[in-house]
């Protein structure tokens, strides 16, 4: 057992990386504009109120690093921002500390936390912070008439140019089906049949030669700005920030959007567990969640945070509430990511997706 531990720690170079000092915690998130919003709204206020330091690290999602650290018994990450499906899988596999949601602070009007958070945002091991969306954005300078539907993304004749897509099966298959005319409410019913999956891959086939695949969230705005693609699947916050702070001529299309939750988890065996717990408690209180939304349009998961959402931090004329994935317009033909479907079928579909990519 000891040898195994030794070896695992050798295998994961991350685990060997310098561990943070005792009075600081390492918070890991997705980088770019999103991490910036968290640093401004959570890290800085928490650090100044407790005197502890926060080290911010970036990753590109998934449980692999957490798993390597926990199995090697050398945990250096204290708080990680993960997708809902990863929070559930990680909890089932015993990789995460349990978080008692009754200790979370109540809303200002006294509503207990367990009723204030939206469905799915609280579970045994995780506390939600935002609702974010996967959707597509386009370069306004490339088209005379703006695209409006998911079908337009797959229409290379009407809207010529390269497409950016994320190099995973998740959400790309749903979008292919919606682009093929499946209403958002029926997407997962269709995906649960073998014919539905074939149909999604057949639709992806029609644009395969024009796709540039991206992996990190910071890439799609860059691909658009460089003119490498004319449209790209992206996360709504990143594109909004490229438009609002850099003045890029990009447009967003909410039709066919897929929204999902991000949650904070604490890897099992974190050496700063108490401080990490305190950080999660602090960050997911009503006000910090609302503050974060003024840096990037990801919706807070607490009902009590919604009325407190203000304007964009550098432009008071931009009401952030209008750019959230949860507005009525955005939800008209949108769907919540089905984490159960992906927990069950993700591996098989990714295998097929990779085989399809390599052909």
């Amino acid at each position, binding site marked *: 057992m000891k040898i*195994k531990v030794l070896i695992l720690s050798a295998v994961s170079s991350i685990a060997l990386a310098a561990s943070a000092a005792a009075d600081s915690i390492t918070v890991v998130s997705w980088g770019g504009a999103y991490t910036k919003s968290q640093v401004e709204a959570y890290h800085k206020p928490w650090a100044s109120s407790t005197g502890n330091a926060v080290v911010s690290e970036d990753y590109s999602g998934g449980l692999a690093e957490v798993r390597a650290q926990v199995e090697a018994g050398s945990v250096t990450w204290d708080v990680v921002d993960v997708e809902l499906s990863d929070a559930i899988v990680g*909890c*089932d596999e*015993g990789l995460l500390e349990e978080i008692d949601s009754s200790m979370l602070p109540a809303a200002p009007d006294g509503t207990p936390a367990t009723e204030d958070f939206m469905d799915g945002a609280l579970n045994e091991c995780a506390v939600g912070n935002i609702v974010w969306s996967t959707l597509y954005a386009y370069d306004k300078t490339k088209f005379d008439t703006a695209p409006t539907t998911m079908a337009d993304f797959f229409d290379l004749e009407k809207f010529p140019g390269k497409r950016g897509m994320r190099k995973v099966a998740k959400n790309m298959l749903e979008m292919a089906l919606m682009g093929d005319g499946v209403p958002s409410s029926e997407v997962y019913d269709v995906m649960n049949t073998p014919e539905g999956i074939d149909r999604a891959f057949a639709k992806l086939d029609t644009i395969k030669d024009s796709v540039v695949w991206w992996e990190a969230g910071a890439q799609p705005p860059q691909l658009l700005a460089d003119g*490498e693609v004319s449209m790209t699947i992206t996360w709504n916050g990143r594109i909004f920030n490229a438009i609002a702070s850099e003045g890029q001529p990009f447009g967003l299309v909410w039709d066919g959007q897929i929204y999902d939750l991000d949650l904070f988890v604490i890897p099992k065996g974190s050496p700063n567990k108490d401080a990490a717990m305190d950080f999660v408690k602090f960050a997911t209180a009503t006000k910090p969640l609302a503050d974060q939304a003024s840096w990037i349009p990801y919706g807070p998961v607490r009902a009590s945070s919604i009325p407190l959402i203000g304007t964009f931090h550098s432009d008071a004329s931009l009401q952030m509430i209008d750019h959230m994935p949860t507005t009525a317009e955005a939800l008209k033909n949108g769907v919540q990511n089905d984490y159960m479907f992906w*927990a069950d079928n993700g*591996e098989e579909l990714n295998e*097929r997706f990779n*085989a399809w*990519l390599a052909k």
Partner: protein
Amino acid sequence: MGLASGMESTKDNHNNVVITSDGIPLKKKLAKSLFQSRLRAFGLVAPLLLLILFAFVIPILIFLSRGVYNNTFERHMINLTPLISSWDSNSEPTEAMFEALVLDLKAGKKSKKIGKVATRVNRELSGTRSLFTSSARKAKKLKAPFKDSLIKANKKWDNLEVWRAMKLTSISVTPAFLASALDMKYNADGTFERKPEERRIHLQLFLRTLEISLIVVLAGLFLGYPIAYLLASLPVRTSNLLLILVLLPFWTSLLVRTTAWIAMLQGQGVLNDLSVVFGLATDEDRFSLIYNKTGTLISMTHILLPFMILPLYSVMKTIPPSYVRAAKSMGATNWTAFWRIYFPQTIPGIGAGGILVFILAISFYITPALIGGQDGTMISNFIDFHMRKTLNWSLAAAMGGVLLVLVLFLYWIYDRVVGIDNMKLG
């Protein structure tokens, strides 16, 4: 040397034993001092040996063993494992098996290991992950008869396929991952079959990896041979200066050189801009030189070129120019002198450079990951994918094992055809 001849002299006179001044037979004394010097030599290399053993050989062996050994199910489903291993795969599962399953689900829920079991079984039979996790959540409330109550909780438990998948995963030493690394499926009845067409990927990747490595070796030879010849035949002062030009990129970080190639090859990059300026391409229709096989080949050839040039150069340096002159003086044409006299003497360098580049290329990883796109990725990128993304370490280990065997096999062929002794690094 002196000691060895001394030993022989004792052999010759074995009838009257030679005694040293302190009364010990010379032979014994000699053996002792030899042993001590060996011990000292061993002591000097021991730190390196231990480092290699513990940081390299043992971890690799342990990791490779994951490719044929995975005891997730056996370790966490202690009640069910003995029952299911004696089950015949076709009859209805018994009430005892259901009871054991419920017991294990309960324990798994408590220890939080059920997710691991679920992931493991889900890899055999997709769509079963939530069956385990949701049933584990309900397991506490289930009552006897367990068969009925479990099937009532989720009717998938009535499906024999689920039980066959559990039986397969309950066997810890399994060829299933190796089979999967070769696009095969290992069935519950012990047979193998090929995976359905749309899920075959690994064989194709192994072939592509071999193909790319081979092309890189040939391209490196084609480009490197003249350079090495030039370096070897120029006066030392000039050739040392030129050698710096070969060594400079060799000393530059791999990552820096790869990113430099991105700047060179991309759609809006230097090469494409030049092509547009010179009218080779139009602004709308630029060459796709990156994020595909072309990009991988160009940059890998460049990155590995020094590994071809340096062995060639050091071998060519030792070939006396007088041989070729002699051949010519006896009437050989330039080509004959080169092909019959010079070239055969450079073969050890070609062998060394070729095998060095090939073995480095076959495991290349960062460059194809950054600029390989879809059709320029190699097998190592998929090993990485299973290590870091799907967390299927057993499959990654199996694929790594196959790659290792492949390299050893090619090395063996090389030894048979060219002869490994016939290789010179200088």
